[in-house]
Every structure is written in C-alpha cells, then in structure tokens.
C-alpha cells in the first residue's frame, strides 16, 4: 500500500531550486549595456532601466511559477485543483531575493545573500508543497513558516529598495504588489482557503500611502522597512481576527500593539 506523500520529490525540488539559483548567478555574471526607457509624462519623468537583468528577473519569476506547478503536479492530494495559490509566494520570493542580489557588489556579501536566498527558496518550495494537504503532519509548521517568510520578504524588499535609492514610481508599484500578494497569501492560509481580495488590496493601498509619505524623510533602510512592515502585519492580523469573528475591539489589540512596536523600534534604531 502506498504511504501518503507529504514531502516533495527530492529530485524535483532540487532541480527547481538549483535552476532558479543558476538564473540568479547568470544574471549577476552577465554584464549587458543598459538602455533606459525614458518618457516625460505629465507630472513625472519615467525612466525604466531595460537590460538583460530586467528581462532575466521576469524570466526567473516565470520559471519559478512554472517550476512550482511542475513540483505540485506530483502531489497525491492535488486532485486536479489549479495550482495558482501555491505559486504566489515562491514567485514573490524569487522577485524579492533578486532585488538585493542585483544591488549587492560581487564578493562575500553577494555569496552570503545568494546562500540565504537559496535557503529561503528551498524552504518556500517545501512549505508550499506541504500546505497543499491540510492533513499533512507538518502543516501547522509549514503555515507558520510561510507566514513569517511573507513578512520577512516584504521587509527585505522595502529595505533593499530604500538602500538602492529607487525612484518613487518604481518603489510604489513594487511595494503594492508585494504587500498585496503577501497579505493575500497569509489571509488565504489563515482563513481556511478564503480569497480576501478587498482586504489584500486595501492593506497594500495603506502600505503604499505610508511609503509615499515617508519617501522623502531621512530614514535609514531599516527604519523605512520597519515603518512599513508594522502596518502590513497589523492590518493583515486585523483581517484575520475579524475573519475569525473576534469582537472588533479585541481583534484590534494585537495588531495595534505590533504596529506600535515596529514604529517604536523604527524610531530608536538607525
């Protein structure tokens, strides 16, 4: 009799992780002339760098999504379901890990980032595979890990974007997308498979409003990250608490405290 299979095929997950890492490495090694798409639109100047790195980032995200689908096809509990929900976080992870790897100079720091990124990706692939089956023995641990990784990814992205002095018109869409996807995935995990699109869009909208407001403040990347991850955590948890039918006042306590803690840390840390 076949044992239920809660863990992914080691060959498949190994091939997927190493292929994405190879794409990161190639992206770092290949130097290409940069072409800036510059357009003066009414009210702002749009300048988007177009080079192999930009193309590779898009391709790597696509590779991750299709790779995750391929990995999940071997899951015995998939039962013909669409795999979209399990691509979100891996694709976001690839996108976020790629940002600091593009910014970091060659050397030990880059290799450390590469190693940590690889470990992150492997864990996300593994955890997403596990949460396909709510009866899996490691389900709770995988869900907690994915939740923690979602917030961590958002924090890493905000810090990396701030560190790179990216323009506001690039920061805002990137943060909107990351906040919406992270909160959507967390809410879906925590609220028994419900897609809370209005909450995810609302949370992302609040996050980008705060990001835009803080854009010209002389904040360090860590301060900027803390100022944004606080509201993301607070609002997502508020949505979860309300989704679990907690009274409004009780539902708001923990998110408020967590947000205040993040903002307090941001004030004292430089």
């Amino acid at each position, binding site marked *: 009799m076949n044992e239920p299979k809660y863990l992914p095929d080691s060959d498949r997950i190994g091939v997927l992780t190493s292929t994405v890492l190879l794409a990161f490495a190639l992206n770092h090694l290949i130097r290409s002339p940069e072409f800036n798409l510059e357009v003066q639109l009414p*009210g*702002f*100047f749009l*300048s988007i760098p177009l080079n192999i790195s930009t193309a590779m980032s898009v391709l790597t995200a696509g590779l991750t999504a299709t790779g995750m689908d391929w990995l999940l096809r071997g899951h015995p509990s998939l039962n013909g379901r669409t795999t979209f929900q399990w691509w979100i976080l891996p694709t976001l992870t690839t996108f976020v890990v790629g940002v600091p790897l593009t910014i970091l100079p060659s050397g030990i720091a880059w290799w450390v980032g590469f190693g940590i990124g690889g470990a992150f990706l492997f864990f996300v692939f593994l955890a997403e595979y596990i949460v396909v089956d709510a009866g899996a023995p490691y389900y709770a641990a995988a869900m907690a890990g994915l939740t923690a990784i979602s917030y961590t990814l958002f924090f890493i992205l905000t810090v990396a974007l701030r560190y790179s002095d990216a*323009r*506001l018109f690039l920061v805002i869409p990137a943060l909107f997308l990351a906040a919406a996807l992270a909160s959507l995935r967390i809410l879906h995990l925590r609220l028994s498979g419900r897609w809370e699109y209005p909450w995810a869009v609302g949370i992302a909208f609040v996050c980008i409003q705060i990001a835009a407001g803080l854009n*010209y403040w*002389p904040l360090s990347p860590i301060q900027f990250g803390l100022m944004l991850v606080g509201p993301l955590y607070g609002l997502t948890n508020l949505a979860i608490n309300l989704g679990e039918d907690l009274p409004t006042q009780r539902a708001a306590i923990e998110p408020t405290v967590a947000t205040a803690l993040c903002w307090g840390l941001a004030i004292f840390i430089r």
Partner: protein
Amino acid sequence: MNKEHWQEMLHHVNRHIPLEACGLLAGTDNRVEKVIVVRNQAQSPVQFVMDPYEQLKAFEWIESNGLDLLGIFHSHPAGPETASATDILEAAYEVVHIIWSRIEDHWQARGFWIKDSDASEVRLRIIE
C-alpha cells in the same frame, strides 16, 4: 555646477540679508542642473528651517524630473564660514551642504559633507 547656478544662489542669499536663506541643489552624477530656492520659515539671522510645503514641492519636482538631491545650501550672513554645531546636529540628508558666509560684504561658499556628527570639506567646482 555652472556659473548661473552659483549666481542664482548668491543672488538668493544676498537678497535675504540679514536673514539666513536656504535652498536645494538638484542634478545627476554630482552635476548640478537646478537650483531650487526654498523659503526660510524661521526668518532668523542665525537659523534656517525650510518651509515644509515648499520643501516637499521641491522634492516632488526633483523626483518628477528624474533628478537627485545633490546638495542643500544656506547662508550665514554673520558667519561662521563653516558648518555650525547646529548644522551638523540637524543634518538629515547625506548630501553636500553648502554654506554661504559673508565677510565684509563679500560672500564666499564652502561645501561640507556631514556624516556621523562630523563635517569634512568637499571641493566645489564651477564649470564654464
């Protein structure tokens, strides 16, 4: 920066004697392309506080024109020639701080890089 930028700053600081005057320098790759004067909200001969609304509008203009903030200038109509203790303490942005000081009706400007409570002088170059 070019001569026009220099003259623009000089005219602005001179026009506000005996009060301190201030503004921002925008450009790319350490090359100034625009001088943006900002009202000194403090209206004081020994202190400057940029008008927050004008400062925000200036930052938005810089962003919307694809430029970077390169420097902040302000005047010391009654000296000193260098960054004061308050300038060092309140420096929030890691950019060149240009101090215009007046000695016997003659203005001079010096650039300083302020970081970690320390001001080190940087060379300002006027290009033709």
